[in-house]
């Protein structure tokens, strides 16, 4: 290869890719006519390109179908979440005030039109679902329309806009989005004197610090190996879920609605009474039942029946095969546990929540919920070290993990970090 050839290298690539203008094509072809080395290069590249173009991931049709079903289940979960946000908007009140009958099924979201969905996403960020348990004993939240009007029109969901904004701010708004979804950010943005006063009042430290030696309590949830959790399909688990569904009393209207929607041809929901469909591979039979169970658990939570909600979440989070549902259920469980633990005086409750959050991260290391969970951990550990200062090292490690890559510290979490510092300074 002559020195001349080196100059041609990029243009050779452009030539192979058909990206050159006519002048360059002529120049390259003139060079190729005289240079055997470059002809060989072009031939090698073309051969490699052809080999790459003809490569395809090796999978069976059944595996592809399983993946497609998994994605559809994830979209069901997403649709459910959006529909719930939409329900909150349509009543102009927090979701907690929305009767179960107004719950939208996933199917409903498809009919909403995606414009409404986009709006619902935005408002959904402010849906104070997470904080409702924390707030309930202190009375209702301020009216949400106020919060809605404060929703930044940043379109943080909008990919194109994200690109325009640049990656850095995108990451921050992503993190904000997740914190909002958990209810962290709306607490500082919704003017709530009663709640705010509560939050700023110095925390009472219990006189006795219970159990300075952390004991490994029984894990509420096992975090199995990543690969195993994705592939295990246990029919007994879906039977458990069916039994749980049968044992919990559904809100009558909601159930009626779901049933009628299931009769829509091509519905997202497949009736569990249609065993042929359930049994037919390769569609995983459990997605429908698990979606219904997840919705039932959400409804129970909104109705204030935390024990039922928790039982449902735990059942779905434990080893249910549908990854998206499992992740959502587990997330909902940690969400509920965090709400209960952040102000709790019961060390076991706080420990359970902390462990559950850790386990979630271990089980779903790439979850979109990751930042939210990292933030929730800081809140829970702030309470934990106040009850048990021996956990300071661990708490600070979790603060560090959460702060990794975070430029903006929401006020609530900033306060939690201060609480950890204060508790650990003693």
């Amino acid at each position, binding site marked *: 290869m002559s020195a001349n050839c080196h100059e041609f*290298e*990029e243009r*050779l*690539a*452009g030539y192979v*890719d058909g*990206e050159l203008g006519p002048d360059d094509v002529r120049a390259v072809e003139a060079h190729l006519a005289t240079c055997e080395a470059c002809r060989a290069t072009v031939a*090698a*590249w073309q*051969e*490699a*390109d052809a*080999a*790459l*173009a003809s*490569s*395809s*991931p*090796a*999978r069976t*049709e059944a595996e*592809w*179908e399983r*993946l*497609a079903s998994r*994605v*559809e289940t*994830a*979209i069901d979960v*997403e649709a459910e979440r*959006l529909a719930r946000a939409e329900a909150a908007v349509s009543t102009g009140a927090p979701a907690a005030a929305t009767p179960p009958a107004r719950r939208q099924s996933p*199917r409903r979201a*498809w009919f*909403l*039109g*995606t414009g409404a*969905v*986009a709006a619902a*996403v935005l408002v959904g960020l402010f849906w104070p679902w997470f904080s409702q348990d924390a707030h309930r004993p202190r009375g209702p939240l301020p009216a949400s329309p106020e919060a809605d009007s404060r929703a930044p029109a940043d379109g943080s*969901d*909008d*990919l*194109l806009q994200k690109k325009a904004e640049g*990656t850095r701010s995108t*990451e921050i708004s992503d993190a904000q989005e997740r914190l909002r979804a958990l209810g962290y950010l709306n607490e500082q943005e919704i003017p709530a004197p009663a709640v705010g006063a509560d939050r700023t009042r110095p925390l009472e430290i219990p006189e006795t610090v219970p159990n300075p030696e952390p004991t490994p309590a029984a894990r509420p949830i096992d975090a199995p190996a*990543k*690969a195993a959790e*994705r592939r295990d399909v246990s029919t007994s688990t879906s039977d458990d879920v069916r039994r749980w569904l049968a044992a919990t009393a559904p809100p009558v209207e909601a159930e009626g609605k779901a049933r009628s929607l299931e009769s829509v041809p*091509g*519905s*997202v929901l497949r009736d569990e009474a249609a065993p042929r469909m359930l049994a037919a591979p390769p*569609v995983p039979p459990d997605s429908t039942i698990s979606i219904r169970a997840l919705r039932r658990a959400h409804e129970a939570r909104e109705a204030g029946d935390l024990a039922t909600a928790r039982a449902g979440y735990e059942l779905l989070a434990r080893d249910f095969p549908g990854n*998206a549902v499992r992740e959502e259920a587990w997330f909902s469980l940690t969400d509920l546990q965090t709400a209960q633990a952040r102000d709790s005086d019961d060390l076991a409750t706080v420990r359970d929540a902390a462990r559950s959050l850790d386990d979630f991260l271990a089980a779903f*290391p*790439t*979850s*979109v919920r*990751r930042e939210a969970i990292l933030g929730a951990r800081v809140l829970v550990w702030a309470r934990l070290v106040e009850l048990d200062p021996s956990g300071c090292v661990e708490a600070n490690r979790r603060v560090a*993990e959460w702060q990794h*890559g975070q430029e903006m510290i929401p006020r609530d979490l900033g306060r939690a970090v201060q609480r950890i510092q204060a508790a650990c300074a003693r």
Partner: protein
Amino acid sequence: MTEPGYSPQKDGSGALPPDAEPTDRDLITRARGGDRAAFGRLLRRHQRRVFALGVRWFRNPDDADDLVQETFVRVWRSLDRFDPERPFVPWLMTIATNRAKTMVERTKSAAEREELDERIPWDGPSPHEDAARAALVRDVNRAMENLPEELRVTLHLRSVEGLAYREIAETLEVPIGTVMSRLARARRRLKERLAEHAGEEERT
């Protein structure tokens, strides 16, 4: 590609009507109107590309599965922002690329990221290929795995997805000059690797 649940209607002549294989644009239009089955078809038609990109990116099938899920959930949520006058695949690749970058960011601190030694599932297009060609496909894909991330993803978008330089530049958010130099570097190194491979096989 077979699509379970889909059976093309046939007219009297036995030929498929012109709308038997709806375009991406048709499917997107229908999906926007709430047609779940249309989105399901779009998903089944294109999930392999996203998976393939994910395998190039993460070099393991589990993360590639996650990428497919995250990408299509995002596509579904963003349907009304898609300009149907533009081709779907570059848009899909842009979303997938953004998701993949986010996943890489998210997992940088994750301890599980250590082992990447899972089987990388690449096949030639059909079992009828001759052995030499199958070996080439295998070698090229193995050589790809040893390239740095930005090189293998750039070359994948060019060689497998057939994206134009401009589209790759938009997708990866880099200047066109960077795309070109990456492709040149990727190909140079691929060629060296393949030459090493060929040398090894001759010696054995």
